[in-house]
């Protein structure tokens, strides 16, 4: 039985609570096997794991796109942001139109929509590009638009599925810093899937490592570095040591 609930914003500080969550697809593929995971208010949790271990599936369950076939998947965030791997912008809409989309789907008024969009576009540093079409933007800018689009929901829980996977190193690092800044300002809880261990460590308050399919969580690491984070922290021995530990756990889980 799946028990996915989207309750009113509770005083409870746990926004996502997965206990022993299984998922077997109709074709018999066992994607998740006993996942235990919580995300609290103020936490930013990254998930690393081998390809095909069920990371996206886990986010899909959290968002309600998929339901668990076993265990309890409780999500008590009332507003959930979901950033896909691709920016998934509508090519016929301008930056402004794309960012307004979600509020529009929630039938917000025109002025309300425009105000929300303007604020979100400001947050991701795209002010001045409102009238541009997606085809006129770089990959990094498209990802920013996608971020801004989700920000208009003012999410309590933010799900990210490898959002920066397709970007070059420099753009990725810049967006990492912006995400950290947004996290500090907006106080959402984050669940972030990535293939990059150093990105996971740099962004997160907690990193979890998944095993190969059927995915389950095989290691958890608290990230002790204070927020806001200095970009140069990436070059310290402590950072390197933690990245090493996570990578090691990832390799172990792969066997």
């Amino acid at each position, binding site marked *: 039985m799946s028990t996915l609930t989207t309750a009113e914003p509770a005083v409870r500080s746990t926004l996502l609570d997965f206990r022993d969550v299984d998922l077997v697809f109709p074709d018999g593929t066992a994607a998740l096997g006993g996942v235990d995971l919580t995300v609290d208010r103020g936490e930013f949790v990254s998930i690393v794991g081998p390809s095909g271990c069920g990371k996206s599936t886990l986010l899909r369950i959290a968002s309600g796109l998929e339901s668990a076939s076993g265990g309890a998947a409780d999500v008590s965030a009332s507003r959930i942001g979901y950033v*896909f*791997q691709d920016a*998934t912008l509508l090519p016929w809409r301008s930056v402004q139109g794309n960012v307004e989309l979600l509020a529009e789907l929630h039938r917000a008024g025109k002025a309300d929509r425009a105000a929300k969009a303007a604020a979100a576009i400001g947050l991701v540093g795209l002010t001045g590009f409102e009238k541009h079409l*997606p*085809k006129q933007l770089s990959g990094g800018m498209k990802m920013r638009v996608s971020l801004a689009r989700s920000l208009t929901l003012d999410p309590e829980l933010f799900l990210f599925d490898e959002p920066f996977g397709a970007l070059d190193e420099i753009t990725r690092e810049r967006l990492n810093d912006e995400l950290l800044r947004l996290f500090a300002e907006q106080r959402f809880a984050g669940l972030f899937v990535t293939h990059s261990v150093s990105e996971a460590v740099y962004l997160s308050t907690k990193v979890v490592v998944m095993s190969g399919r059927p995915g389950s969580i095989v290691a958890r690491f608290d990230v002790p570095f204070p927020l806001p984070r200095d970009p140069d922290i990436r070059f310290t021995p402590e950072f390197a040591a933690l990245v090493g530990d996570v990578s090691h756990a990832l390799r172990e889980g792969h066997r």
Partner: protein
Amino acid sequence: MPTLQETAARRSTVARSALRPRRIRKRASWWQPVAAFAVFVGLWYAVAAYYDQTVELPYLVPYPHLVLQAIVHDTRPDGVPTGFNAELWAALGRTTVVSLVGLAAAIVLGVLWATVMAQAKGLEKALYPYAVVLQCVPILALVPLIGALFGYASLSRVIVTVMIALFPMVSNTLFGLQSVDRAQRELFELQGAGRLTRLRKLQIPAALPSIFVGLRTSAGLSVIGAIVGDQFFQRGDPGLGVLIQVTASRLMGPELYATIIIASLYGIAVFLAFGLIGRLAVGRWFDFS
């Protein structure tokens, strides 16, 4: 009519052209086409002279200037009034009406049909075969029936036009509606958007480029449909199709050629016009070339 593949090819070209630097546009050159046209007209004169002097059947291949004369003047070169020129333009007008009315009906029917099919796989499986059947039925076989049911004048001409022009609208619209990718669909689903909202704000806009590709093909076909329909159903005022048959059977060489040329020019004009409309409508965000 490989319009689906055409669209798919276009789409992948679009994806690729994002990576490739755009080719620098060649300077339009005017003299090669003009030279080719001059050669063509020269050859035409030669063949016309051969048919005039040697074969002695001048109406089979009339001289170009006689054809031009038939298009622009209501008199023969010797000054005899023909009344043909006025007839030609009136026929073009009637054919235009039939083809545009037929095209409009094909657009409405095609888009509705495809939208219904896009609602469920089961509906698509149930209804798509009939779109294919429609395209396979030899129209000629239905002519007596259509005539008996709807008369031998304009209405039947329009029906033939719709039957010929419908398929590209159905297939391209369906392809377009289904081209929305999964993540975009889920983006809407996550916000609890209903079927109608998704159709209006996602699927139809996403389908517009391929709808316009279908529209251009259908527009070209609607001209063929109107002319063929005209030849099947000859009651009432003649359109270009009737004019072609009449001039051919009366051995009116220049007039026959004039009618064929006007019909072709109209077909080309329609094709270009609808290509342009598509470009104006979605060229802002979609790259057709």
